[in-house]
């Protein structure tokens, strides 16, 4: 099994080694030997471990399997083999309905094409995941407002998505994913379409919140700049995790250890 940061006999300790930092011994998310689909044509023996409060970038060219990996880790796709342990719980063993319940409660997802309901205010949009998780209206609204304030967009709470620019909407997507105070946040290109300055600000807020709340953040991106904003970056090449310096141009497929 090629379990990501352990590949090549890397020691299981936190720190920076040749531009790659290693997670803690007790990861919040521990993925081993993930295969999808059965022939491993998209993901093959993918392993990854992310510690509490850590921000990890999965860097890969378009078509390298990032979206599939996000779908597999969040339980939206069924893998052919492999294990996904979340906070010591075997997520991979859960039946579909309980997997959805677990996802609602413990995972946050930011989609690249994050969309909101235009009929609802931003606060109500951000409260929706809480309502689906069974939380009452008042508590959900209060929590959503708190999270909007944490992401510094409390002023936009009563505005509708159509009235907002890209930056507050991107942050709102993060708020919607974080409102449940998840153990793991999966973010697909969370800063897409933002200026460097906006992306830096949003990233600073996200990392600060992730550290203070102990949330493991996994950022899926094809942008080395976005990856560089994270604590650690892992390269996904041809459906496999590769450790090593990130090439300057990641769009070209690179053969690594196959």
């Amino acid at each position, binding site marked *: 099994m090629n379990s990501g940061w352990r590949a090549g006999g890397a020691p299981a300790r936190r720190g920076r080694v040749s531009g790659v930092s290693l997670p803690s011994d007790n990861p919040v998310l521990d993925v081993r030997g993930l295969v999808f689909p059965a022939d491993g044509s998209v993901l093959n023996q993918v392993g990854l471990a992310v510690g509490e409060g850590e921000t990890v970038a999965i860097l890969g060219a378009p078509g390298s399997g990032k979206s599939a990996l996000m779908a597999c880790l969040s339980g939206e796709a*069924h*893998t*052919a*083999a*492999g*294990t*996904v342990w979340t906070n010591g*719980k*075997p997520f*991979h*063993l*859960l*039946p579909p*309905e*309980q997997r*959805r*319940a*677990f*996802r*609602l*409660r413990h995972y946050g*997802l930011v*989609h690249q*094409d*994050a*969309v*909101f*309901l*235009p*009929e*609802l205010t931003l606060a109500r*949009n951000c409260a*929706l*995941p809480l*309502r*689906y*998780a*069974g*939380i*009452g*209206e008042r508590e959900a609204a209060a929590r959503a407002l708190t999270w909007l304030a944490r992401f510094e967009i409390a002023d936009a709470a009563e505005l*509708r998505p159509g009235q907002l620019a890209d930056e507050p909407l991107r942050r709102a997507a993060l708020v*919607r994913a974080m409102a449940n105070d998840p153990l793991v946040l999966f973010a697909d290109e969370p800063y897409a379409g933002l200026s460097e300055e906006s992306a830096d600000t949003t990233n600073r807020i996200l990392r600060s919140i992730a550290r203070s709340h102990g949330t493991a953040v996994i950022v899926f991106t094809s942008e080395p700049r976005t990856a560089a904003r994270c604590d650690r970056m892992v390269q996904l090449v041809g459906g496999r995790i590769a450790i090593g310096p990130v090439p300057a141009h990641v769009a070209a497929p690179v053969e690594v250890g196959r």
Partner: protein
Amino acid sequence: MSGGAPAGFAESYFAPRETPWFRARLALRLAVPLDRDADLAAWKVAWSAALAAPPLTVTLIAPTAKLTIGTVAGLICSALPGIAATVWSAARLRETRELAGRALRQSGAEHRTAWLLAAGRVALFAGLGALSGGLPVAALHVPLGAMLPRRAPLHGMFGAALSTWVSAIAVTTAVATGIALIAGSMAWTRLDWTPVRARFRALRGGRRPR
């Protein structure tokens, strides 16, 4: 991933339960258009369904024994403009519906729930339109019946029982709503209309628009 969960493991997780009326209130919230454009698009669906409803209701209530092919063809032809308008107007709401469904799924809704909630606006307006088109026919069937000659093929329907009229209106509403839902779905865009277009061109005798 395979294998079963350890005994008692699954039970230790909470089961999400949406609070009562949450879905109904959300459905209502999403069904009512917010701005003028959305309002106009939704009312177009309603008017189109109202246009299609009377001939559909009459077709359903007509006595089959006395119906001639000409009468059936006439009824179908009179329903076609309304059906075409319903298809066209519902298709205009497709993108809104698709986005609503995606937003709901991203918020944690199940696929089926998201689909139903997102389809609420089309269903509501098409249903309202069909009802408003079908009900006047039912309400006015006695004076209409008096105007028709006894030998007219449709004369027998005006003596139909109340329950038959209610059923006909219910089926009309379901049919109009169904047409709007299908036309306003993404599945509609995946339909291959090439054979139909080819047939249509052939019927036009090979004439091509300049």
